[in-house]
């Protein structure tokens, strides 16, 4: 089917207002939150219902055309980067909250619903939706599902995958299936819901999502503790975890990150602090009161220089604003920067931070560190100036070195931003060829023709017809004539 025919077919499904094919308008969609990569899609289509979304996918299937799903386009790994000969399916118009069922503590929503919108909908009844990515005002639930997004409060409450209990999915051939039990637990069969969440749009399109709602905790208490440096702050984190306390969140920022956040939102961080921790406890009043005192004491024992306790919700919001605006704020102290996302076992923190400093020094670059300290998810922000000859390349190298450091310590190349387009070449550093082939088995079951978000996550997927099996050494390799990279 040629492009014109496909456009006509898509217009029949969504109406002409749902299809964008003008080159200039298409440019709006050429990248996601990672602007380094840009591709103009062939067509953009904006379905308004699950039926339309299914029709669109079926039309792509019949035309043999690849497709990429897009929610709000805030992804930071190029996951929603279009493919030039493909259709970009934007779910942003599917924005209805279909059902709120407080007796079963569930909400059923369309994928374009914004993360924060869910909490707003149920806050009046004393409920909320737990996963809280910093982008929660703008990112979509569909994007959260695809990325298995996390947030500051995931230390205690888990990630998107722990809060999605049901999905309606359009498979790449247009078939509509329901995964997970929805409101009932333990559905019989394979946990395909678990496999779908975090699959970054490569297994199909989520058209309806059932979310778990939580009761708002009775008490929330937050403190901001300043330390001489990240070592002392890291020590405080170890003491808190070691005492058997599971805070709702423990976030750390180093001096450079504070400097940036201060410039943007005026939190009034203590002068001369080398690191701050934001520690939040929530839960039943009596428990929180008791453990909060203990956290305060443990911070002091670890050498905290000043401790500020949020007096009210406004001050708490300010502590969080400083933290959540840190990425963007770094723009105030550096013309350009990379946002890195890597994970290490929390106990390796001091060692890894030292190594990052060394690596940065070697390249004459600065790194601001903002991270989810409780679970070892680092977000080093590599600062550079694109105008200065060679800096961008060194910054890129440094970003990569940071990931290798994470892997050396038994960590991961991504804790929440996903592999997407950006990191697919690193995936084989974390997983063996056999591991990746095994993941590919899942891909082939869902998408044998490889049409859903092709070219993402996996560097060079096998074709689905190939029989994987244990990897055998090729005779050429064996003879020492070639190496496999």
């Amino acid at each position, binding site marked *: 089917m040629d492009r014109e025919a496909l456009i006509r077919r898509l217009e029949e499904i969504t109406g002409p207002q749902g299809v964008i094919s003008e080159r200039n308008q298409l440019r709006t969609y050429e990248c996601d939150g990672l602007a380094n990569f840009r591709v103009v899609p062939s067509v953009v289509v904006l379905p308004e219902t699950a039926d339309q979304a299914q029709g669109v996918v079926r039309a792509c299937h019949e035309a043999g055309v690849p497709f990429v799903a897009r929610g709000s386009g805030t992804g930071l790994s190029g996951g929603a980067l279009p493919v030039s000969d493909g259709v970009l399916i934007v779910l942003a118009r599917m924005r209805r909250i279909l059902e709120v069922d407080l007796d*079963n503590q569930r909400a059923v929503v369309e994928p374009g619903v914004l993360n924060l919108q869910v909490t707003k909908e149920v806050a009046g009844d004393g409920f909320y939706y737990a996963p809280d990515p910093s982008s929660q005002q703008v990112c979509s639930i569909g994007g959260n599902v695809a990325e298995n997004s996390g947030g500051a409060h995931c230390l205690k409450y888990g990630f998107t995958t722990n809060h999605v209990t049901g999905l309606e999915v359009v498979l790449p051939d247009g078939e509509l299936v329901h995964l997970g039990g929805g409101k009932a637990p333990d559905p019989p069969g394979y946990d395909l819901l678990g496999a779908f969440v975090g699959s970054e749009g490569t297994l199909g399109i989520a058209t309806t999502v059932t979310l778990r709602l939580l009761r708002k905790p009775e008490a929330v208490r937050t403190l901001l503790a300043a330390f001489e440096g990240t070592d002392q702050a890291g020590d405080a984190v170890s003491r808190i975890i070691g005492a058997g306390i599971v805070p709702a969140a423990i976030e750390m920022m180093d001096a450079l990150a504070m400097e940036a956040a201060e410039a943007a939102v005026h939190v009034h961080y203590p002068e001369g602090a080398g690191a701050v921790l934001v520690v939040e406890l929530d839960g039943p009043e009596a428990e929180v009161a008791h453990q909060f005192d203990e956290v305060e004491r443990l911070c002091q024992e670890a050498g905290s220089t000043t401790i500020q306790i949020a007096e009210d919700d406004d001050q708490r919001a300010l502590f969080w604003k400083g933290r959540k605006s840190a990425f963007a704020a770094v723009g105030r102290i550096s013309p350009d920067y990379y946002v890195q996302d890597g994970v290490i076992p929390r106990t390796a923190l001091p060692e890894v931070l030292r190594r990052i400093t060394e690596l940065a020094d070697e390249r004459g670059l600065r790194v601001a560190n903002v991270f989810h300290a409780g679970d070892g998810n680092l977000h080093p922000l590599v600062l550079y100036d694109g105008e200065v000859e060679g800096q961008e390349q060194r910054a890129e190298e440094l970003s990569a070195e940071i990931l290798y450091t994470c892997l050396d310590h038994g960590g991961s190349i991504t804790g929440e931003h996903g592999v997407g387009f950006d990191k697919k070449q690193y995936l084989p550093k974390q997983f063996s060829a056999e591991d990746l082939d095994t993941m590919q088995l899942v891909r082939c079951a869902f998408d044998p023709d490889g049409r859903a978000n092709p070219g993402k996550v996996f560097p060079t997927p096998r074709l689905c017809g190939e029989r994987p*099996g244990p990897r055998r050494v090729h005779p050429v390799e064996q003879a020492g004539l070639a190496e496999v990279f």
Partner: protein
Amino acid sequence: MGTQELEQGGLVGPAPAGTAVDGVPVARLARPGSVEEASQVLRAAAEDGLAVVFAGGASKLGLGNPPERADLLVSSERLDQVLEHAAGDLVVRAQAGVRLADLQAALAPAGQWLALDPPEPRATVGGVVAANASGPRRLRYGTVRDLIIGITVVLADGTVAHAGGKVVKNVAGYDLAKLFCGSLGTLGMIAEVIFRLHPLPAAAAVVTLEVEEPAQAGRAVQRLLRSPLEPSAVELVVDEWGWPGRLTTVFEGIQPGVEAQATAAAELLGQVGSAAVAGPGQTDAALSQLGALPFEKAELAFKATFPPAELPAVLAELRGRGPLRWGGSLRAHAGTGVLWLASDAREGELPADSPAVPRMVGWVTEARERLAARGGGLVVVKAPPHLKGQVDAWGPAGDALGLMRRVKERFDPDRRMSPGRFVGGI
């Protein structure tokens, strides 16, 4: 290399006389002691075209439909090492054959535990993952899928594959660990698992409520769930004699916290019936009883699942006058929509020629329809082989069954891994 060569090496041998899985005899047994050996065994089995079934603690080998074929039983009993306990990171890596009770004992000195409490102490961690086993505290901690962060599996052709890792937060690659949760040996062998851990609670308090009838049970549970209280478990027991039943609410954490919560819960539940905070001795007794399923001697057992708010309706059907009237005991993880039923018929009391057998088959069909209408389902957890021949263990798996079959075909194209045990004959 086929299994014959491995037999010479001692890795595969004849199974002890009488070895059977759900009534299906198995002739040969392999007991690999490492991931490499497991891979060798499965590769050899592939060479010989053998149908393979797996066993951990063999506590629940009867789960699922009887296998269509079973040539080789692969036991994880020699894979019994806790490989790494990173206490500071609240993470443990263990081989599949480690018994859950032994794992908990190894973690306890560090003040930690794996927050899973299925009632079967002999269960192995691999078996718990393969069967998606859970217990009362799932209300607070979730199930296996919420706690597993990494896995090593051996596939039908001997391929060893990993997914996830040693860090709790990790979105690199597909989450294969979840795919293997509850896969019951149909995708391959689980060789190693990595879990996130929780601090062991220092104190516990228990509140009990006598429950006269279904609607009251429903009200009590809804009140708890709507309150800011954070119970670890809310368990309902109705024994063979019928109402009244007992609702046990457990709080775990630090002493001042659990005391305050228990007092608040007793007051809250006091508005629905006669509730009381258990004394110290009673608390220990209640905790040791918690979640015990009286299935060992029952001839039949079922697991019903439904949206939690349907609890009173489901209870009314089971303990009312309608077609679902159930004579045995009931135990519910009342806050999560899981209800276990054990028959009052003891083991051996339902021979193939018993007139009760067709009644039971009819009951399962009826129960499935009614639960499905409420968004739930019913799994046959325990039944004599002759009954299993007449009812599917799982019931309908929904419109994703075709997709599940395609997953199975990719992982096990020759259908040799526990064939026939799973949903839809997978």
